[in-house]
C-alpha cells in the first residue's frame, strides 16, 4: 500500500474510533498475525491496521473506510480460533471486538439475551447463573473465546451433544454487511419469515458479515446434574459403551472420552482422580428432571459395566463434578508435559465408526512414529487427536501434517467430514474438495457472492479460492523456516 494511501487510511480509521484504538506499528500488529492456529498458518500475514471499535456504529464506519480504500475486512474476536479464520491473509483492516463486551439485555421469560460480540463465552453464563439460566454452547476455550467467535465458527463444545451447536442458540444478529450497511436479521421469535439469514450467517467465519450484536437463546439451568466417570480396558470397549448408551435412548448432556496418554498428563497436572491404569475413560454428564437423571444414571452405569468398564464412579458433590470436568476442559494444556508442541486435528465420523477411527489413529501413531493423545466428544463422533511433536526436530512437523491428512481422508471415507467444530478458515479450505464437488462449491460461492460481490469480507477463507493444496503446503513450509520465537 502506498505511503500516502496508508496515511489517509489510518487517519480515516482514527477519525472513527480515536487514534488510541488504531494499531498500525509493526510490533503492535505482530499480535494480530496470530490466532490459536498452528504457526504453519499463523504469524505470516499482517493487516495494514487493527482497529478496536467500541460500538456497532463504529464497526460500520470502519468497514466503510476499508471498503472505500478497496481493502479486505477481517473480524477478530478473542483470537482463539484454531483454523486461521482470523488471519488477515490478504492484509486489509482487522476489526478486533475485544472492547465490545457488554451484556445489553437479559429477558428470562422470553429466554434470550442481547450481547456484544466480544463478550467472553463463560462470562455470559456466569453473569446469568443467579437467574437460573446459561448459554449452552461451551467450547473448551470458553474461558477465553468470544460469543462473536462462537457465531463465526458455529462452535460446539461438550454439551452440544444434547443442546446443539451455536447456530441452535442464536435467534438474531445485528451485522454490518459487505455493502457497509448495519442491520438486524432474525429476532426474538423462533421462526422468522423468509429464508434463515441468521442461520446462514452463523458459521460463515466472518465472510458474509461482521456481527455487532447477537441475540442469544438462554437455556434454563437443569434441576439435577450427574457426572459419571467410567474407566475401560480398551478404547474399543469405551467406544462401544458410547454406542450402547445412545442406542438405549439416553441422550446425555455430554459424553466425552480421554485415552491413557491424556489421563497421564491430566492426572499429573490436576489430580482429578482419573484411574491411571485405564486405557480410556468416559466422562458422562446427565442433566434434567431429577427423576430422569436418577434413572439414566443407573442405566449408564449398567451399560458401561456391560461393556467391560473396570470402574464406574458418580461424583457425589458439585466440587467433585467440577474436578472431573477440570481434567477434561484443561486437557489440551496438560499435554505440554509430554511434548513441546501438538497439532490438534478436528474431524468427525458417524458415531458407530468411532472404534475403527480410533484404531486408525493408533495405526497412524505407529506408522508415523508420533505419540497421539485422544480427548474428544465421543457422543458426537467428533475426534480431536492431538499429535505430539517437537517443532525443532527435523522432519517431525512434516510427519505430523501427513498423519493429519491421512486421518482426514480416513474419516471422510468413513462417512465423516472435514471439521466438526473448529472451522475451516485457512487451514482446511482446500480439504473441502474431498467432500464437495465443483457443483456443491459453486452453490456455496453463489451464497458468498450474493452477500459479498467484491469478496472483501475475510477473503480466501472457508472454501477453496486462490490457494491450491500445493500452495498451502508451501505456506506450511515457510513457517518451518521462521526463527525460534514461535511455539504452539
Amino acid at each position, binding site marked *: 500500500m502506498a505511503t500516502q494511501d496508508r496515511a489517509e487510511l489510518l487517519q480515516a480509521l482514527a477519525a472513527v474510533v480515536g487514534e488510541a484504538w488504531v494499531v498500525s506499528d509493526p510490533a503492535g500488529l505482530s499480535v494480530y498475525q496470530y490466532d490459536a492456529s498452528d504457526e504453519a498458518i499463523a504469524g505470516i500475514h499482517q493487516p495494514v491496521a487493527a482497529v478496536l471499535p467500541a460500538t456497532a456504529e463504529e464497526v460500520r464506519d470502519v468497514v466503510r473506510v476499508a471498503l472505500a480504500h478497496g481493502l479486505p475486512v477481517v473480524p477478530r474476536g478473542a483470537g482463539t480460533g484454531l483454523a486461521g479464520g482470523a488471519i488477515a491473509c490478504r492484509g486489509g483492516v482487522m476489526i478486533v471486538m475485544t472492547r465490545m463486551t457488554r451484556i445489553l439485555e437479559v429477558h428470562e421469560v422470553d429466554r434470550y439475551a442481547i450481547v456484544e460480540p466480544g463478550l467472553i463465552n463463560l462470562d455470559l453464563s456466569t453473569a446469568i447463573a443467579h437467574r437460573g439460566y446459561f448459554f449452552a454452547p461451551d467450547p473448551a476455550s470458553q474461558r477465553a473465546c468470544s460469543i462473536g467467535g462462537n457465531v463465526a*465458527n458455529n462452535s460446539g463444545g461438550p454439551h452440544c451433544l444434547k443442546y*446443539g451447536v451455536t447456530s441452535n442458540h442464536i435467534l438474531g444478529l445485528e451485522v454490518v454487511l459487505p455493502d457497509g450497511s448495519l442491520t438486524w436479521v432474525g429476532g426474538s421469535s423462533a421462526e422468522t419469515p423468509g*429464508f*434463515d439469514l441468521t442461520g446462514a450467517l452463523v458459521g460463515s467465519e466472518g465472510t458474509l458479515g461482521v456481527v455487532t450484536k447477537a441475540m442469544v437463546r438462554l437455556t434454563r439451568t437443569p434441576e439435577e446434574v450427574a457426572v459419571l466417570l467410567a474407566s475401560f480396558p480398551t478404547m474399543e470397549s469405551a467406544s462401544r459403551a458410547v454406542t450402547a448408551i445412545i442406542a438405549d435412548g439416553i*441422550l446425555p448432556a455430554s459424553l466425552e472420552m480421554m485415552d491413557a496418554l491424556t489421563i497421564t498428563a491430566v492426572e499429573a497436572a490436576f489430580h482429578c482422580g482419573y484411574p491411571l491404569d485405564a486405557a480410556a475413560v468416559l466422562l458422562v454428564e446427565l442433566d434434567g428432571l431429577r*427423576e430422569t437423571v436418577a434413572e439414566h444414571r443407573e442405566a449408564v452405569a449398567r451399560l458401561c459395566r456391560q461393556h467391560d468398564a473396570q470402574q464406574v464412579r458418580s461424583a457425589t458433590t458439585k466440587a467433585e463434578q467440577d474436578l472431573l470436568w477440570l481434567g477434561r476442559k484443561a486437557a489440551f494444556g496438560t499435554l505440554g508435559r509430554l511434548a513441546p508442541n501438538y497439532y490438534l486435528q478436528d474431524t468427525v465420523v458417524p458415531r458407530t465408526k468411532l472404534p475403527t477411527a480410533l484404531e486408525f489413529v493408533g495405526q497412524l501413531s505407529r506408522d508415523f512414529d508420533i505419540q497421539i493423545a485422544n480427548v474428544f466428544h465421543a457422543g458426537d463422533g467428533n475426534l480431536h487427536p492431538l499429535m505430539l511433536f517437537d517443532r525443532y526436530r527435523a522432519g517431525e512437523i512434516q510427519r505430523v501434517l501427513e498423519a493429519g491428512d491421512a486421518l482426514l481422508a480416513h474419516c471422510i471415507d468413513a462417512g465423516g467430514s472435514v471439521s466438526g467444530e473448529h472451522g475451516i478458515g485457512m487451514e482446511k479450505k482446500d480439504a473441502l474438495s474431498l467432500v*464437495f464437488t465443483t457443483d456443491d462449491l459453486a*452453490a456455496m460461492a453463489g451464497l458468498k457472492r450474493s452477500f459479498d460481490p467484491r469478496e472483501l469480507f475475510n477473503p480466501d477463507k472457508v472454501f477453496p479460492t486462490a490457494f491450491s493444496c500445493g500452495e498451502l503446503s508451501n505456506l506450511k513450509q515457510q513457517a518451518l523456516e521462521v526463527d525460534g520465537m514461535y511455539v504452539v
Partner: protein
Amino acid sequence: MSSEVELVPVVVDGTDITDVRFPESPQEMSATLREMQPVDAHALIVGGGTRTAFGNLGGSFDLAISTRKLNRILQYEPDNMTMAVEPGCTIEQIREALAANRQSIALDAAHDSRSTIGGAYATGMSGPRRLGGGSLKDWVIGVEVMGPDGVNAKAGGMVVKNVTGFDMMHLHYGALGAFGVVTRLNLKVFPAPTASRSIQLVYTTPEHAHAAAVALITSQLLPASIVVANTPEGWQTSVRCDAPEEAIELLVQRMNAVAADAAEPISANVSDDGSDALSAFRDTADLAAGDIVVRLPIRASHQPAALPRLADTGWRVCADVGSGLVYARRPSSDALDEGGIEAFSTATWLALPRHLKTDRDVFGPTPDAVQPILRRLKDSFDPERRLNRGRFALGL
C-alpha cells in the same frame, strides 16, 4: 399410491394447474427441470399440498412439480441417530419409521399424513415442540438441492456435528423453493420419550392462562410444548410432558402444582396422548382449510396484552409461548381487521385469499439492507425465475 398422492390438479391462489409431474427419482426430477428450459416454462414446486396457501401471488405456472413420489427413506442409522429422506416423505411416514427404533423428531403439522418433510422445510414451519425438541432447521444436517438446470448441489453431511463449508441447510430453510428443489434432507433424530402426557388447563382469562404457561416455562420441569389458545371452553393452556415411564406421573403432578400456584384453573384434564396438547396448534395453523391464518412474532412477555385484543377482534388464537409466536385464524373475508395490533406490521401471512394478497408481501417486511442480497441470491440460483416464480419474499 393413494389418491392423496396424486393431488391433481394443484390449486394455488384459486388457479388450477392441471399439468402436474411426479418425478420418482432425482434423475427424473432433473429431466423434468431440464425440459422446462427450451420451452421457457415456469413451475410451481409442491409437496403434500397442505401449505400451498402460503406464498405471494406468483406469476402464472405452466406446470407443477410434485415431490410426493420422491418419497424414499434413503438411509436410516438408528445408532448414529441420523436419517436421510427424500422430500416427499410425509411426516407420518418418518415418524413411523423412527418409532420402530424408539426414536422421533418433534415436528408438528396440521396434516401429518399428507404434509411432507420437504414442504415443512421449504415453508420453514415447525411447531410448539420446538420448545423442548428444537426446530426442523436445527435437525437438518445435510441437504441436496437441485437448481432449475437440473444439477444437484449438496451441503452438510450425515454427521451430527459439522462446520464444513457454508450452511446451505439454513439458506434453503423457509425459502419456499425459491433457490432450488430439495431432493434430499439428512436429519438428526432423537430418542423418543417413553411416556407422554397432555395437561389441559382451562381459565377464564388469557392473563391467567398465560401466567400458568410462564410459570411452567421458567420452571425446571422441561415442558415439551406449551400453547395458550382461546377455545369454546375458555382460555386453555395445553402442556405436553415427555419423560421416562417411571417419572411421568410425578412430573404431571409437579407441573399441575406449578401451574396452579400461578393461577388456579377452572378445569384440569390430563390425557395419556401427548398429541392432545398440540391440537389447538394443529387447528389454528391449518393452512388447508381456506381460512385466513397469520403468524405473529410476539414474545412471551408481550403475549398477555396481545391475546385478548386478537380474540376481541374475532381471531382464533394459539400462542406458542416457548417460541414467541402467535398463530391466529379467522374465516376468509373481504377485509382484514388488524385491531391496531403492532405485531401485524411484521406478520407472516400463512394463508390469505387471493384478493388480500394483492399489494401485500405475505412474508412481511424485509429489511432494506437484506433486499439486495435476496435478489442476488435469486439471480444466482434461479436467474430465469423458473421455480415458484414470484411466490417468495419481495415477489422473487
